[in-house]
């Protein structure tokens, strides 16, 4: 039998056949590996590519005024981002976008023209700005700009109550200042999660996996702020600061019977919606952030203590020299007065020497006890974690001779404007101290409400408080505070003019004064307490009175704010008005 002849073509067939078989084997092995060995891993990788874990941002709680009008709201805005590699004419596009963005034209042009594929052009844009930018993009067929939706904090009333509300960070929306920062834990809510299966185009796959853990919105905060009164207070203090050239000014309006803060105005102020012109020095809420030596307004505590202890009565006459030496210090009264004064006269004329004599009767221990009982030296409000406590050294640390007398006339003790408003509110509320507060209630996402319950304590008897009010009325009726008078209302209050301490130099300024007036009306049953403080006012009135005095600069602000507030609250006059004939 003859063997078949070997041919080259057979080798080629064999070779091809070998490679085909090898390829099939390799393919089979790979299929086995993919489908059997690594099946779970590949399935998971595919699943991971389709499944998207998306964050659902919790809506930040809304802050309302006392009538339920929004003061701070979160809405859906957007960030504007650009892909500079797609931008063909950065200069032209920058000029189109410039009016809508908080960025100067040069920076905008530079960002649009830079290398790379990402540039942030605008952050936390408000909805109306987003609409306008969308219109610009559509009208001009701009490619390479994207609006990325995100929550944005909006303050509908702009500058109104801005120093109370504070503001949030632009990047993560957390509270930065004011109530926004103080109540951040309450307002912030809890983010949710959405697990959704998406196709390569980013579209949700129907019937794909879809799990949602909804976001829990933050709680809403209802404040005690009255927008009308806040507006009046802000207008008045802003005008006063501009007129007197003061560094800053603040007004606090309180309801003494409840401790509710109706207004808390600071000047200069700021607009939290406009970050471009934001002045960091204007953000502070001066009513709680500024500590100053109050001067004569603090005399009411020493005098009230002396009355409460039964050491004197309003009609008690005592010899009051023009000056008095205690230890190494000499205290004097700036204006001439009779050698004998009643306690009421001491209050009316704001006599330093007379007040110091009453302090000497009261003694350091009891004086300190009253200063402490009125809430000095510690934060007085529950709503402002940033509130400064002021300075009140313990009586055991007082110097034996001059610390008590100095404190009696408002030196050596640091207070905030809110603390002084609270002191006078105690007198207005028949001697009961009530914690001042600006948050009326907090309403969570389930509608559960937490109503603020302010602390209370009795400091003075009702009778002492009544006597103090009568004496304070004399200050306005015929004393240093006559510019605080309001037509138709009995007003009581106290002026304060304190030399300004310069901490850097360790001395008192010879020029600058802290001018203040704290008062109440109507005097029999006060509905409001208003505190006004101005830092270093200057200039003179037409009659030559220097504006650095509290009676000249702060008392008129009190009159404007108190009259408008009483009118706004619907409080009837308790005295005949000029129009009564």
């Amino acid at each position, binding site marked *: 039998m003859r063997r078949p002849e070997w041919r080259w073509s057979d080798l080629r067939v064999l070779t091809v056949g070998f490679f085909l078989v090898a390829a099939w084997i390799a393919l089979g092995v790979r299929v086995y590996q993919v489908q059997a060995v690594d099946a779970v891993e590949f399935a998971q990788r595919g699943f991971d590519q389709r499944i998207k874990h998306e964050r659902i941002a919790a809506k930040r709680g809304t802050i309302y005024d*006392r009538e339920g009008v929004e003061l701070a709201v979160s*809405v859906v805005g957007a960030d504007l981002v650009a892909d500079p590699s797609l931008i063909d004419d950065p200069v032209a596009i920058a000029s189109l976008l410039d009016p809508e963005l908080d960025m100067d034209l040069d920076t905008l042009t530079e960002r649009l023209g830079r290398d790379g594929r990402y540039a942030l052009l605008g952050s936390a844009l408000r909805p109306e700005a987003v609409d306008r930018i969308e219109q610009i993009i559509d009208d001009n067929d701009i490619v390479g700009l994207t609006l990325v939706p995100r929550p944005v904090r909006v303050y509908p009333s702009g500058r109104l109550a801005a120093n109370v509300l504070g503001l949030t960070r632009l990047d993560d929306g957390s509270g930065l200042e004011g109530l926004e920062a103080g109540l951040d834990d309450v307002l912030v809510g809890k983010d949710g999660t959405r697990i959704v299966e998406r196709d390569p185009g980013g579209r949700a796959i129907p019937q794909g996996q879809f799990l949602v853990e909804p976001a829990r919105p933050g709680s809403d905060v209802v404040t*005690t702020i009255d927008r009308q009164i806040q507006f009046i207070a802000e207008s008045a203090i802003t005008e006063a600061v501009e007129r007197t050239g003061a560094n800053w000014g603040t007004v606090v309006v309180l309801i003494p019977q409840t401790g509710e803060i109706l207004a808390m105005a600071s000047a200069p102020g700021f607009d939290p919606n406009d970050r471009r012109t934001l002045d960091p020095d204007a953000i502070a809420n001066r009513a709680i952030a500024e500590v100053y030596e109050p001067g004569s307004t603090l005399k009411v505590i020493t005098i009230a203590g002396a009355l409460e202890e039964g050491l004197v009565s309003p009609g008690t006459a005592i010899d009051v020299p023009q000056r008095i030496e205690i230890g190494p210090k000499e205290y004097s009264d700036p204006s001439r007065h009779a050698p004998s004064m009643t306690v009421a006269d001491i209050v009316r004329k704001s006599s330093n020497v007379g007040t110091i004599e009453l302090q000497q009767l009261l003694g350091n221990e009891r004086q300190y006890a009253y200063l402490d009982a009125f809430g000095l030296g510690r934060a007085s409000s529950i709503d402002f974690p940033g509130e400064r406590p002021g300075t009140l050294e313990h009586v055991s640390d007082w110097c034996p001779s001059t610390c008590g007398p100095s404190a009696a006339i408002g030196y050596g003790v640091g207070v905030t404007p809110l603390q002084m408003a609270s002191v006078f509110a105690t007198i207005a509320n028949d001697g009961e101290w009530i914690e001042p507060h600006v948050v009326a209630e907090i309403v969570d996402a389930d509608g559960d409400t937490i109503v603020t319950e302010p602390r209370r304590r009795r400091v003075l008897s009702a009778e002492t408080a009544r006597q103090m009010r009568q004496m304070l009325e004399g200050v306005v009726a015929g004393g240093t505070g006559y510019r605080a008078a309001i037509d138709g209302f009995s007003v009581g209050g106290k002026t304060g003019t304190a030399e300004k301490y310069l901490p850097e130099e360790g001395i008192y300024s010879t020029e600058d004064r802290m001018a203040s007036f704290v008062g109440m009306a109507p005097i029999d049953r006060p509905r409001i307490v208003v505190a006004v403080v101005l830092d270093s006012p200057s200039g003179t009135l037409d009659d030559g009175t220097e504006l650095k005095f509290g009676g000249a600069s702060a008392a008129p602000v009190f009159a404007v704010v108190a009259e408008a507030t009483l009118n706004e*609250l619907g409080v*009837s006059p308790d005295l005949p*008005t000029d129009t009564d004939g």
Partner: protein
Amino acid sequence: MTSRAIPFPTERARDAAPPAVRRHLPRVRPLVVFTLAAIIALFGMIYGRISLDRNAFELQRLESRIAQEEARYWNLKVESAELMDPVRITGAAEEMGMVFPERRVPIEVDGITIDTPARSIDTGDLTATAGSP
């Protein structure tokens, strides 16, 4: 050993009728029913799937619409609050020539207690004062 050829079948044998076998005709009706049921089930499943998908798309559309309406609601709330801003109202009033009254005139009404408490402690608020021209 002799071999014998296998006889070829004769014409007759070839033409002869096959032996009688009892013929089992297929039962047509159940088959048709089954086929129809299968087709209906198939189309039913397809329809169900389409229907579910459509509902899923509709749900997505509704959710998107809810989000849009919610955003619109809050935008309107903001707009409303902006319109109530005392700064805006005062500016608008001044533009119209309105001024603050220089004096207040209390109006007393018989039978009404004028001593009105602050708003926060009384809901029945009666304003007993009015600005004079």
